[in-house]
């Protein structure tokens, strides 16, 4: 099989194509999601080519690359958001918890319950701050009593670092918050259903630098509980928050590496050129 990943430097750790070239010894190495030979087409156009990647639990994995390289498309494969696009065709394996997420017997609703998502533009529901958080857990029957809901709303907002700012205005619409607060509300909404993985699709691209820094700190805290996969245009952000970084180019995974190595001593010429700003 035409693997897009270079030969593993540490055979013991990286026995499969798709494992990062360099393994960070201190990190958790249990697999959250395993992707094997993933191909995706939008109609006739192939957007992802033979992607192999291991996503580790309780780490931040950043996906970088120039616009149109397929990183957002790949992210949406992980919770089957691409199902919503009609012309999409997917081949290959995306495995989570021993199950193929694209299998016929996999319910995409169950999958999304375990793989939450935060979008590029903050998109709180046009409901109160409280209901934004409580809606999904109530729907999934995680809570039903009012007191449990209150506790859950508080803990989700605390985890998202928003509690102190909104605890007195829980009945106000979520859309009345500032952009950065809205994005943290969306993160709180995602973590309220206690997913295993949180996908973030350029979560800070619509935010100012201060809100961005807040979200980055938040990602650092959240990775103790969740596996985070984030797409970013901002390479400094990847360098700051990610444990592992995957570099996509023209629908291919060019390099998947320990972040430190990726930014100091990348294995591939393409990654090096992109990171040093020669294109992209």
């Amino acid at each position, binding site marked *: 099989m035409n693997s897009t990943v270079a030969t593993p430097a540490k055979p013991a750790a990286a026995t499969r194509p798709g494992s990062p070239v360099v393994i960070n010894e201190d990190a958790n190495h249990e697999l959250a999601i395993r992707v094997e030979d993933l191909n995706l087409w939008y109609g006739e156009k192939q957007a992802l080519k033979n992607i192999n990647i291991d996503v580790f639990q309780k780490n931040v994995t950043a996906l970088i690359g120039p616009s149109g390289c397929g990183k957002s498309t790949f992210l949406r494969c992980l*919770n089957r*958001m691409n199902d*919503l696009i*009609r012309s999409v065709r997917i081949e290959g394996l995306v495995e989570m918890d021993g199950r193929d997420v694209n299998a016929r017997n996999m319910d995409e*609703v*169950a999958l*999304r*319950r375990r793989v*939450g*998502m*935060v*979008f590029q*533009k903050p*998109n*709180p*529901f*046009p409901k109160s701050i409280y209901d934004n958080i409580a*809606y*999904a857990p109530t*729907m*999934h029957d995680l809570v039903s009593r009012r007191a449990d809901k209150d506790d859950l709303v508080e803990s989700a907002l605390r985890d998202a670092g928003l509690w102190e700012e909104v605890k007195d205005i829980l009945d106000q*619409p979520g*859309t009345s918050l500032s952009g950065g607060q809205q994005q943290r509300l*969306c993160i709180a*909404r*995602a973590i309220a*259903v206690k997913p295993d993985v949180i996908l973030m699709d350029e979560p800070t691209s619509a935010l100012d630098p201060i809100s961005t820094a807040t979200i980055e700190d938040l990602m650092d805290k959240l990775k103790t509980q969740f596996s985070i996969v984030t797409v970013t245009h901002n390479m400094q952000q990847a360098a700051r928050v990610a444990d592992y970084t995957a570099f996509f180019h023209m629908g291919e995974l060019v390099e998947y590496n320990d972040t430190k190595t990726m930014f100091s001593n990348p294995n591939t010429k393409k990654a090096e050129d992109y990171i040093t700003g020669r294109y992209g």
Partner: protein
Amino acid sequence: MSHSFDDISAQLKGRHRRTKRLKFMSMGALALAATFLVVFIGDMVMRGYPAFQQAELHVPVTYSEQSQEIPLAAVEEDVRDLVSRGWLRQLPRDMAADASLMGQTIDRWVIADDQVDQYLKGHKSHLKPKQTAVLDRMIENGTAELKFNINFFTTGDSKLPEYAGIWSAAMGTILTLLVTLAFAFPVGVLTAVYLEEFAPDNRFTQAIEININNLAAVPSILFGLLGLAIFINFFGMPRSSPLVGGLTLGLMTLPVIIITTRSALRSVPDTIRQAAFGVGCSRWQVVRDHVLPLSLPGILTGSIIGLAQAMGETAPLIIVGMVAFIPDAPTAITQAATVLPAQIFTWAGEPEQAYVERTAAGILVLLSVLILLNAAAVMLRKKFERRW
């Protein structure tokens, strides 16, 4: 070399002139439309206002056994032709209902004949000189007067103009629109939800879409034929009934509701759908909890406008037999009924001035209800509108 301000201003003059010309033209168009509206409504009010008044006569009424047999005997001879025949005909029934009236003579206000009514309103009448002399005397001593015409709002159609009212047509309209709403709203909204949120984009759904759009442009009388063929001939529903009329108008309203609902659904930003899918909503939950509440104002507005359209419709109802003489207000959707525009149409065909008045008054009532419906649409939109 750059241009001076004067050069630029010289060139700008023409452009500003064109702007001004366009502004005046659009203002002229608005003024023209407003004039037509004012003239139309003014004319209707002028013609229709008299119908809200009815001549009544203050006469002694004798309740006796003779007048129970021959109601004409209840009033004195010189006013017999001036009092409404409809009122006299009702006298025995009044006496049967209230036995204490027997043997009494009561001075009371009695509804006058339509010719008296026209005479009092200063219109041409067919009264004989002898009758007008009596009437003039009564007007002078205050026993003949124009009073508020309560009958217009409480009775149905009648062959006696002074008893012809809007009530049965109004009831018919209400029942018909209820049927229309009960049929077209759920079917239309669900169709739109399916097409917009569930249906795959293929030849079949595209064909359905084109057909729905075309359906909205089909002449309404054809829906009447469809209603006749399906509901009356095939299903054997009673003709002239609000059930058939409502379903027929429902077929006509369906495309309007589908189209407006679809555009309301489409105006809900996709980010909301993604957010809902992202937290693990099923498609139905996305629609029920997020998309429908957000598009509700648009759906309601569209439906009310569709209903208002149906309310003003006459042509398809001719075919299912709802343009007819219906004196009694229907109480069930299977009884014979007529509707407001059909009542107006019927009255418009009558030669008597009293019916001409009622035609205009009926138009005023219909317009008021339409304005109320549209105001309701605006208020609902305001109430449910949410920002995101």
